[in-house]
C-alpha cells in the first residue's frame, strides 16, 4: 500500500497537526506515504477564482510528478483534494484547457493519476475491519459530529466521493472507533472557507451556525478532514463568544488525530496541543479495548 503523498501548504503551517497525525496513522496501519519531491502549491482559492488555466496547471504540475512515481496521489486537505480532482476533470473534459496546461507545464498531462483523500484510502484500501482490529483504544460512545464541509464531497460529479448531501465516510470511521457518530443536519454546511481572514464576520456567522447545530445534536466534539474547516471552527470559537455570547467549547479534531489516539499514538505526535479548544475531554474518554469486553 504505497502512495504519492501530497501534504499541501497547510501541512507546513496551520495544519501541521493534520500532517503529523496522518503520517503517524499511516505508519501504524502499514500505509507507505512517499512524499512527492518538489511538490508545489495547488493554487487553492486564489487560483480558481482568477484563472482557469492556472487553477488546472498548478495541481497538474503535482499530478505529473506523482505520475512519474507510478502511484496514486494521496491528500489530506479537502481544498487540495478538490483542486487536484478538478484539474483531472478539466484536462479530461476540456481539450482546450489541456492544451493550455501542456503549454504551461511544457509537457502533456492526461488526467489519469488517481487522486485519493486519505479517508478514502482508509475506507477502501485498508478497510474498516483491519482498522478495527488494529485499535488499542475505543472512543467508548463519545458523541462525534462528523463535519465534511464543502469541498470533500462536492461537486459530486468531480469528487465522486461519498453522498454529497449526507456523507458518511467519517461517520463509518468514528463508529469503527467505538464512537457514536451523530446524524446531524449540518454535515455539509459551509464554515466560511477562505473568507477566514478577509471576512471574519461571515466566518463567525457561518461557523457559529455549524457549531450551534453540533451542540444541539449533542456532540462532544466535531471531527473534520479539512484544515480550513478545522481552523474556522476551532479558532473562531473565541470570536463567536465575543460576538454572540455563545461559548461552544467544542474540540474540533482531525479524523486522523482521533484515529491516532485510538491506535495508541502519542498526543505529541498527533499534535493535539495545536488545537485551540482543548481536546482533553476527548482524550479522557478513551478506553482500552480489552476493558470493554
Amino acid at each position: 500500500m504505497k502512495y504519492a503523498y501530497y501534504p499541501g501548504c497547510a501541512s507546513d503551517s496551520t495544519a501541521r497537526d493534520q500532517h503529523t497525525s496522518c503520517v503517524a496513522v499511516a505508519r501504524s496501519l502499514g500505509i507507505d506515504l512517499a512524499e512527492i519531491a518538489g511538490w508545489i502549491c495547488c493554487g487553492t482559492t486564489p487560483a480558481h477564482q482568477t484563472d482557469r488555466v492556472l487553477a488546472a496547471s498548478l495541481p497538474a504540475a503535482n499530478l505529473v510528478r506523482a505520475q512519474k512515481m507510478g502511484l496514486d496521489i494521496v491528500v489530506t486537505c479537502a481544498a487540495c483534494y478538490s483542486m487536484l480532482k478538478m484539474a483531472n476533470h478539466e484536462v479530461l473534459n476540456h481539450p482546450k484547457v489541456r492544451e493550455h496546461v501542456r503549454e504551461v507545464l511544457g509537457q502533456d498531462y492526461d488526467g489519469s493519476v488517481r487522486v485519493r483523500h486519505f479517508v478514502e484510502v482508509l475506507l477502501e484500501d485498508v478497510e474498516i475491519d483491519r482498522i478495527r482490529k488494529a485499535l488499542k483504544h475505543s472512543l467508548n460512545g463519545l458523541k462525534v459530529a462528523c463535519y465534511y464541509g464543502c469541498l470533500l464531497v462536492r461537486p459530486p460529479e468531480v469528487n465522486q466521493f461519498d453522498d454529497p448531501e449526507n456523507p458518511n465516510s467519517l461517520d463509518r470511521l468514528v463508529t469503527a472507533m467505538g464512537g457514536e457518530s451523530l446524524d446531524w443536519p449540518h454535515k455539509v454546511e459551509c464554515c466560511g472557507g477562505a473568507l477566514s481572514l478577509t471576512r471574519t464576520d461571515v466566518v463567525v456567522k457561518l461557523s457559529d451556525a455549524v457549531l450551534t447545530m453540533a451542540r444541539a445534536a449533542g456532540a462532544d466534539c466535531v471531527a473534520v478532514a479539512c484544515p480550513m474547516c478545522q481552523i474556522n471552527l476551532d479558532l473562531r470559537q473565541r470570536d463567536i463568544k465575543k460576538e454572540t455570547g455563545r461559548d461552544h467549547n467544542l474540540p474540533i479534531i482531525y479524523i486522523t488525530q482521533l484515529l491516532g489516539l485510538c491506535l495508541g499514538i502519542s498526543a505529541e505526535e498527533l499534535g493535539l496541543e495545536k488545537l485551540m479548544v482543548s481536546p482533553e475531554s476527548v482524550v479522557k474518554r478513551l478506553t482500552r479495548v480489552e476493558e470493554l469486553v
Partner: protein
Amino acid sequence: MNNNNNNNNNNKKIGAVLVQGGGIAGVQAALDLANSGFKVYLIERSAAIGGMMAQLDKTFPTGDCATCIVSPKLVECARNLNIEILTLSELHSIEGEPGRFTVTIKKSPRYVDEKICNACGDCTVVCPVAISDRFNRGLGTRKVIAKQYVQAVPNLPAILKLGHAPCKTMCPANINVQGYIQLIKKKEYIKAVNLIRERNPLSAICGRVCTHPCETACTRGQVDAPVAIRQLKRFASDKEMEMVASGQITLPAEKTPSPDARKVAIVGAGPSGLTVAQDLADRGYAVTVYEARPAAGGMLRWGIPEYRLPEKVLDYEIELIRRKGVTFVFNCQMGKDISIDKLREDHDAVFIGVGLQKGTILNVKGENFSGVVQGLDFLKAIKDGTADIKDSVFVIGGGNVAIDVALSAKRLGAQEVQMACLESWEEMPANEEEKKQALEEGITIHTSWGPKRIKGSEGMVNGIELKKCTAVFDDQKRFNPTYDETTTKDFKTAMVILAIGSRSDPSLFGTTADLPVNQRRNIIVDQYGLTEKDGVFAGGEIVTGPATVIEAVAAGKRAAESIDRYVRKEDQRTARFENTIAPVAEEFLPSTAEVAKRPRAQAPELPVEQRINSFAEIEATFSEEDALAETERCLNCALCSECRECVAACEKNAINHAMEGQMIELEVGSVILTPGFEEFPAAKKGEFGFGRYGNVITNVQFERMLSAAGPFEGHIVRPSGGGEAKRIAFIQCVGSRDSNCGNDYCSSVCCMATIKQAMVAREHMEGLDATIFYMDIRAHGKDFDQYYERARSETNIHFVRSMPSRIVQVPDTKNLRVRFAHENREFEEREFDLVVLATGIDPKTSVTERISRLGIELNGFGFCATNRLLPLTTSRPGVFVAGAFQEPKDIPETVTQASGAASLAMELLADFRNTLVAKKSYPDERDITDEEPRIGVFVCHCGINIASVVDVTQVVDSVKSQPGVVFAKDSMFTCSDTSLSEIKEKIREYRLNRIVVASCTPRTHEPLFRETLREAGLNPYLFELANIRDQCSWVHPLNPKEATNKAIDLVRMSIARAQSLAPLGGESLEINQSGLVIGGGMSGMTAALSLADQGFKTSLVERTDRLGGNLLNLYSTLEKDDISTFTASLIQRVENHPNITVYRETELARVAGHIGNFLVSLSRKEEKIDVACGAVIVATGAKPAETSEFLYGKSKQVLTQVELEKQLHEQTFSTGGGNVVMIQCVGSRNPEHPYCSRLCCSMAVKNALSIKEKDPDAHVFVFYRDVRTYGFRETYYKKAREAGVIFIRYDQDSPPKISDANGLVVTLDSPDFPESLEIEADHVVLSTGVIPGEDNKALSNMLKVPLNADGFYVEAHLKLRPVDFASEGIFLCGLAHSPKFVDENISQARAAAARAATVLSKTHLDVGAQVSHVNQNKCISCMTCLKVCPYGAPLVNRDQKAEIVGAKCMGCGICAAECPACAIQLSHFETGQFCMMLDTLLAVGNPS
C-alpha cells in the same frame, strides 16, 4: 367460445386483447374492449387492480373520493364475463405479429386459492407478522397475508413471501426459526415447539446447548445484536414442560407400531440416532435403538455437564421420542453384543450413529503421566460419579468441551483451573457465552499457546511447558499451526485434561471391518447417507468427524428421509426437503438502516459464587415478558414466516403455502401497455432529507395520510411523533424539471395535486397553515385555474415562488427549517412541522426494465417512445400504449388515452369482433304469475364472521314460520359453489319462487345470488339480501343477544319484502349500428375514421365547405412534426373512405330518439336530410380568441401567435434587427376568461425557437405569468432559454403596457426586477388563447347536453367519463371539450370512437328493468321530473303527461323522490315494498 387454435389461416386474427397494467388506464381499456365484443386479459403485477388511483385520497378539482369513484369500475371489471384478470402476473414476452400474438405471462403464486377464498379475513387476523405496508408507502403496517387494500379487486388476500430467512437457511436442520418466533409472539408456545420438532426433536436440548449458527446469520445483528433465537427456543420448550408438569397438558399417548410395520435398527442413541428414530416412528416404522450405555442421549448425556443440560430435560425429550413407539435396547455394544450384519438381516434398514467416543491425543512428551486424562472421559466420570480431581488443573483446548471441562473441574473443587489453546481469543471455537462464563468463574485462559511438553516426576504430572503459537491456520485457512519454539512458559499443575477433539473408537468395528472407513476412521457414505452395505446407513460424527448437536440432528433428518425412500424403493434425488430451501435474495433482506436499536434480552444467570459450588443450571429461561419483547426484535426477513396460523384459521382450506408460480401462454390479437409509473425516489434529492428526517414525506404518503382508510385515518400528524402537523410546507418539482437527476420533463400533475392536498388538509384540520413552494403553477386543465384561484384566495394557503435549497431538521423538536430565497433574493429559513415533497412521475427502474424486455422503444427518460401525431402507437406494430407511461398526465387524460388505445385495437381486429366472447345462456324463466309466494331463506355463518356473534340457528328457527317461508336453512358459506348448487336444488325441490339470503352485503354478493336465480330459471329480481354481517355482526360484536334479535328482524323484514317482489324484464332495443360525427376538424375526422375503420357506417357533418378546421392554420408541432402533410392525408382518407359520408356546409336542425336509435335532421342550404344513427360524437371544436388589447388591429407590428406561425411558415416574418416581445395570457386567466388556454405557452416557445433558429441574434422576450410547458414540452422551454429567449414574469395586477408614440414600446413591472423594464419592440406577439364556438349553446339544447360557465361542453364525469355525456349514446371530443394539443385531440377523438363502439358493436341493447314509471293518472304535469333528471329520460307525451324513456333511464330514483304527486315509482324499489318491511318491523306483538 370459438376455438382458433386449429386454424392455420394466416389472415385470421384473434379477437382478444391483452392489457398490461391494472391501473385506471388498464381498467378503462379492458372495459371498452370487453363491452364491444373482445375477449380481454388484464394483467396486473400486484395482488389487486386499481393502481395509483386507488391510493389517492381525493381527486382534483372535483373533490371526489378517489376510491369511491374508481371502485365501481374495478368491480365492473371483475364481473365482466369477458375480462380475465390475472393478478401477480407479469408480461414476459410477446411473439408473433399484429393480429396474432403469442404472449407469455409469468404468474407468481398468491398462496390463496382464488376460487375457494371468500375474503372473510380470518387469516389476516391470526397472522402474527406485521410488515411495513407498501400500499401506505411505509406509513403503516400490514399483515403478511392480507388484502392489498380494503376495497381490493379481486377481493382476496395474498401472502408475501421472499424465500427463506437467513436463520432458517443457516440452520443445519433448517428449522423454521422465523415461524416459531412469530408463534411465540402470539403466545402459541405449544404450536411453536411443534414447529421446531418438525425439524428437530431436541428442542429443549438445543435451546440450551446449540451453537446457534442461526444467530450468526440473523439480519438483526446488523442493527444491534442478533435475536436470542436459542433462548427463545428454550423458552417455548420450557413452557411446554411447565404445562406438562402442571397438568395443563398431558404427554402424548404411547404408540405401538403396527405388527406389519417395516423394521429399522438404529445403533447409537445420540442426537442423530434419536432424530432418525423419531422421524421413522412418525412414518409408521417399528424402530429399535441399540445403545452401548445404560441410557439414551449419547454425548448429550455423557459429554455435556448438568449445569448446562440438566438430565431431566434430556429425559423429557427422549421420553417424547419413546412414546412414538420407539424401542430402546441398552447396554448393547456394536461389534461386541450385536453385529451390523445380524441387524441388517433382521431389519429392513440399519442406521449407524455411534458418534466419536475417543479423545484426540497430543503427541507430546509426558502424555502418559498419570494425571493426564481425556476431557470426554473426565466428563463421563463426573456423570458416573467416579471423577477424580486435583487442586490445580490445566485444560488443553479452546472449544466448548474444554470450557465444560474447566468449569466442571472448578465445581469438583479444583482451586486453580487454567486453560491453554492455540487460537487467539477471537479465534477460539467456544461460544462467546461460554468464554464469558469461564472468565467470570476465574479461569485463566492462555490464548495462542500450545503444549510443548508435559512435565512430571515418578509417573505423576507436576507441570506443563507451553510454546507460543504464531498462527493456527495456513493461507488456505486449514488447521496447520506454526510455533515459536523459543518462546515458552512453564506452569505447575497436578492434572492435565486434554480437550482437543474426538475420534472414532476402533473397537466398535470389531465385526464390521467390511464397512469402508477413511483415514480418520470415519465411515464413508454417499450423499444420501448410504454406506457401501446395502440398506446400512450412517450419519452424525461417525461420518463427518466432530460436529455439533444440530449438525447431528440434520444428519438424522436426511438419513431418515433416505431410509424411508430406500425401504419404499423410491428415487433418492427428487424433491428432497433440503433442496427447497431457497434463501431470500440479499437485495430483498430488510433494510437495517432505519431500525431503532433495542437491547437483546438477557436470560438471568446464577451468580458466580453460587454456581461454582454446584452443578445447578447456570442459565435460566427467559421470563415471558422478556421472551415476548425479544420476539419483537425479529425483522421477518422472509416476510411470511410460514408459521401456518393462517392455514389453521382458514375454514375453507383456501391457503396453500406450497403453491407454485406458472408460465401462461395466451393468443391475442393486440396488446395495450398501461404499466403506469413509479414515484421519483425522493431520497435522491438529499438536500431535502427524505428518509433521514422523519417529518419529510412524499405526496403519495400524504395522500395516504389524508385517506380515511389510510394508516392515520385522515389525521394529519407528524410521523416522528409530536401530534398534529399544523405548519405544512409543500415543495414542488422534486424529481421533475430537474436536469440534475435526469428528469428534465414536467410531471404535469403535481401542482394541482398539491393544491388539492392543501385544500383537503385545510378541511381536516383547523388552524392549518400551508405553504406551497413552486416554480410555476401549472393549472392547465379544464376548470383547474378556477380551483387554483380559489386556493389562492384562502388565507391559510400561501404560494411562495421559490425552489428551496435545503431542509434542516432541528434536533430536539424534529421541526424542519426550509431554506429558500425570496423574489428579492433575500434568504429565509422558515420552520414547519411537516414537509411534503411533490415527487414526480418516473417510469425508471422496474417499469422501464420490464417494458424494454418486450422490444418496445423508450424515450430518453424511460417513457414509451411515441410522437405527437401517433400518441398511442409504440414502436412495435399492434402494441399500443396509454396513460402515464406514455407521458406524465392526470386521470382524465389517462382514461381518454386508454379508450383511445382500445379503439386502435378495435380497428386492428375489427373483423374478429365477437369471435371469442362468451355469452351466458340461461334456462327459460319460470312464469310465477299465478303462484303464491314460496320463499326460501338461506342464513350464512360466513365462517365465524356472523356465527361468532349472531346465533344463526336461532335466526333460522325464528323465521321458519314466517308467512310465505317454505324452506329455511343455515350454511357455513352461502356463497360457496356447493351452497349455490344447493339453492338451485331447493328452488326445484320446493318450487321456491322468492329467495332471501341473510349474509354479508349486497354490494359484493347480490350479483352472484341473482345469477344463481337465473340459472335456476327464476327472474333475478325475485331475490332479496338481508345484510346481517356488515350491518349486524361486525358492528355489534360485544352484544351477541341483541345482534341475534336484530338479525332476526332484518331477515323478517326481507321476507316481508320478498313476498311482494315481482319479476322484472327490460326491453331489448334494436341498435342502428352507424355513427354520426358533428364537426369536420381534426377530432371529428379522426373519430369518423376510427369508427369507419371498425366497420361502422359514419356520417360526418361539417358546417363549412372545407374539412380541416383549426388544423388548416397550423404548420408544425413544437416537436417539429409536419402538420400540413398530416392534415392533407387525413382529409384525403376521410373523403375516400367507403364507410364515411361527408356532409359539408351542413348543420344540425333537430335531434330525436335515444341511444341506439337517434334520428338526426340535417340542413344543407335548402336541403333537409334525415340521418339515423346509434351514437353521436360531438367534435365541434373551438376557435382562436380575438382581442383589441395591446394595439392589436391598430398596429401592423402587433400580431397573434397564430398569425406569427403563418408568417414564419411562409417566411414572411423578419425581426428587422429589433426586439420581439411576446405577451402571454392576453384575455385569459382573468375574470372574463378564467380558464387557461393550455396551448399558448408552448406555442410561444415554438415560435420563439423558430425565430432564434432563423436569426440567433434576434432578441425574443416572453412576458408570462406561469410557463405551462407541461410534460415533455418542458424540454423545449429549456431549449428556448438556452437559445437565449428571455422569459420575464408579470403579475396579473400589473400587466405590460404598450405605446406606439415613438415606435412600439412595451413597459413592464416584473416582480423579479427591482425597476421597470422598457423594451422597444419591432414586433409584439399576443397569445390570445382559445374560446368556445358561439353555436355551442344551440347544439347543446338540441342534444340536451350541458355547457360549463366558459361555454365548453360538460362531460359525464370530469375524471372517469371524460368523453361521455351523461346522456347515453352521445360522446364528446376535441376542443369542444376544452383547449388541448393535437396529440391530445387525437387520443380523445379515438376515445370517443371507442366509447361509441361499445354501443354500435351490439345488435341489441338491453334496457335496464330497474327503471322509473309514471302513473299517468296521478301525474299533474308539473314537469318536475324533467328538471331533475340528469339523463333527460322523462318526456312530455301527447297527453301533456310525463313519461319515462326506459332506454334513457338509469334507475337512480331522483324523479321518484322529487315527484310531488307521488306519481313515479322506481321498479324494484317500490313504496309498497318498503312499507311492508316497516310494518313487519313495527308490528305490534313483534315476536322478537
